[in-house]
């Protein structure tokens, strides 16, 4: 297995600076949320995290280009990325779990069905129904109406599915050393990612301004925004990653058989895509 050439980097500044940066960001976020000030501190944290990540990845790219990584190192990266994506999957699983739980248990119980149906004594006027337009307590305003899945959400689904295909084409092109083709299809993928984000932005605008779907709009709003919101953040990150990979392609990085940076981004993108399909089905359609 180990061929004796495993690259162990010497000292590095990025881990400690990265953790401090994350700490600064979290403290900033906390101060912002609790005392409504400190946005600058948070911004400083975010900027330093991005900076540290940039420098850290620059080192990795250099080491990779310098041929310091053997095939065993490559496998370490693969395991690392694979398990990281699994952890992300579990993160989304918590939110999906919450959605399933409220839909199959909590809301029917509050409405008087099932084993804890007596709970309805506390909410005499409440009718269980999903999507939950009128929450149990009148002080919580539910959404006025919800999105039809067959409009923007469907468009977004098509966009993301297409982007997964274009990305695969780009990858195949790279394997065949057709770098121009690869570059073009990858650029297309990034573009599709941007389209998705813009459409999602439009949808959020609509949600707040015309549909009454807000964070405060009962459990529907809460689950809607936490699922689509975290997904959206992942698309943004994924798009940025792909954009960086695009730059590297343009710079002539990667070889036909040695391009894990490219592959890892593909994995991530496909994962984001799969999560969206789950969202489309469980948040919008059903």
């Amino acid at each position, binding site marked *: 297995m180990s061929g004796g050439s495993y690259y162990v980097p010497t000292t590095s500044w990025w881990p400690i600076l990265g953790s401090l940066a994350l700490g600064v960001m979290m403290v900033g976020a906390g101060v912002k949320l609790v005392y409504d000030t400190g946005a600058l501190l948070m911004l400083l944290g975010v900027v330093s995290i991005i900076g540290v990540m940039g420098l850290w990845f620059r080192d990795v790219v250099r080491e990779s280009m310098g041929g310091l990584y053997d095939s065993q190192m490559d496998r370490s990266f693969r395991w690392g990325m694979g398990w990281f994506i699994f952890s992300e999957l579990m993160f989304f699983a918590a939110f999906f779990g919450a959605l399933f739980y409220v839909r199959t248990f909590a809301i029917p119980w509050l409405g008087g069905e099932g084993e804890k149906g007596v709970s309805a004594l506390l909410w005499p006027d409440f009718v269980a129904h999903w999507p939950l337009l009128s929450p*149990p307590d009148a002080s919580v305003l539910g959404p006025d109406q919800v999105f039809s899945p067959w409009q923007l959400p469907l468009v977004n689904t098509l966009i993301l599915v297409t982007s997964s295909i274009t990305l695969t084409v780009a990858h195949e092109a790279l394997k065949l050393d057709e770098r121009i083709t690869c570059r073009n299809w990858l650029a297309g993928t990034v573009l599709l990612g941007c389209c998705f984000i813009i459409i999602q932005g439009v949808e959020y605008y609509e949600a707040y301004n015309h549909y009454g779907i807000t964070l405060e709009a009962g459990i529907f709003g809460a689950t809607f925004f936490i699922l689509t919101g975290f997904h959206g953040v992942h698309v943004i990150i994924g798009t940025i990653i792909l954009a960086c990979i695009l730059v590297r392609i343009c710079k002539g990085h990667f070889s036909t058989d040695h391009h894990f940076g490219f592959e890892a981004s593909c994995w991530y993108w496909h994962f984001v895509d799969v999560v969206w399909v789950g969202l489309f089905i469980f948040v919008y359609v059903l």
Partner: protein
Amino acid sequence: MAPKLPPQHPLQHSTTAAADGQADHAHHASPKGIMRWLLTTNHKEIGSLYLIFSLIMFFIGGIFALVVRAELFQPGLQLIEPEFFNQMTTMHGLIMVFAAVMPAFTGLANWMIPLQIGAPDMALPRLNNFSFWLLPVAFTLLLSTLFMPGGGPNFGWTFYAPLSTTYAPPSTTFFILALHIAGVSSILGAINIVATILNMRAPGMRMMDMPLFVWTWLITAFLLIAVMPVLAGVITMMLMDINFGTSFFDAAGGGDPVLFQHLFWFFGHPEVYIMILPAFGIVSAIIPTFARKRLFGYASMVYATAAIALLSFLVWAHHMFVVGLPLAAELFFMYSTMLIAVPTGVKVFNWVTTLFRGSISFEPPMLFALAFVVLFTIGGFSGLMLAIAPADFQYHDTYFVVAHFHYVLVPGAIFAIMAGVYYWLPKWTGHYPHERLAQCHFWCSIVGVNLTFFPMHFAGLAGMPRRIPDYALQFADFNLVSSIGAFFFGISQLIFVLVIVLCVRGGRKAPAQAWEGAEDLEWSVPSPAPLHTFETPPVFHRSHHGD
């Protein structure tokens, strides 16, 4: 573009971590000395950092426990206000779980896994240092909440909504963010460990040749990667409920406070096995060594560990027997929980059978390992009693539960960590720990632990609820004994620190194979282990495991 190559390994690093610690002491923290610890990518140095961090946190968490015990020494409110009492209970639980036990095991993993599988280092060394340095950041933030207006978290380490959302102090937001950082650290650390174990084994070492500590950690890391993100998810929902007006845990908006508990315990139960599986691994290394006999049932140990891990995903609601689950759920979780006794039993029987017809000696690591087997099993038995749902209606949220989990955590996890430390200290420092002092530490700890936690069973059965700063008069005697025991146990831990310090500074020299019966790969490198080991991978010979 010509890449700039990083410099080669500086040779001056080839001293041991421990010996260098001494040098640090002498030169009084010259920037170079500190920088080396801040910037390191070496698994041994990072392992030491983890272990030192966890020892400090064990003391901080222990002092919080002593504050709790001091208030409970007698009925009535004497020393602290109920509000502060709740903060102490909460912080004690959080610090012990997230900052003492988990980092201690990660530290041992860092030190020993590469040595046990013949790897030059962890798979992703820089990430490794990142995982560590997140911890001081996270726990400084967490501890600082105690000084914030309104006080720190006061809702128990299980932070049930809505006490932790609508009714919580303002510092709760910081508590959540701190936990997020700690979670990132655990996930990245676990990913690194999985990658190391799957990818960095010496040529010739199959999965079923790996020492059990490696196996148990592989499975633990899997649990971590699977459940830490769920914790991150649920605390994010709390954050939203507190700061953005969502209603995940509020029936008024269609949510449910019990949803919080389901998500929390989906993380929380595997979490308790995260704190015990590596302990099983350590004990499975020590018992064969000092019985001078191969571990009985290696394969079944592996399968049992995997079975415990898989079952641990299906039992979470045994912490929620009295929240009003439907009958079917109640039955399902009762049965699945009871089943965990089976694979755990397999492990206990295997250890005992390893002892049977061995050739046994009682060095300090062995003493702790044997105490582990007995006292952990007692804690397991009370766990099984708790698993019987109807009976749990009486046990739940009483000191009987507190007794249960301290038996599996203190003479369980903590004793196993101490056993591991005594076992591997010769490898780390090149010296044997002081035998007499270590024995003294052991006997004091054994007495202290039982004095502290055994009476809690009675207090709980007699009806004393947990998390109360004052209690009815009939519980006074039990609490008096517990408090005395706690201080005795606490003070005894100073001996542990003394032994470690002495051992780092000197003591009887240890050879490469420090213990006569020890067989794993780590004993083939010199003691103390040089900073870099196995730079050329060793060839693994199937001497003991498998055939």
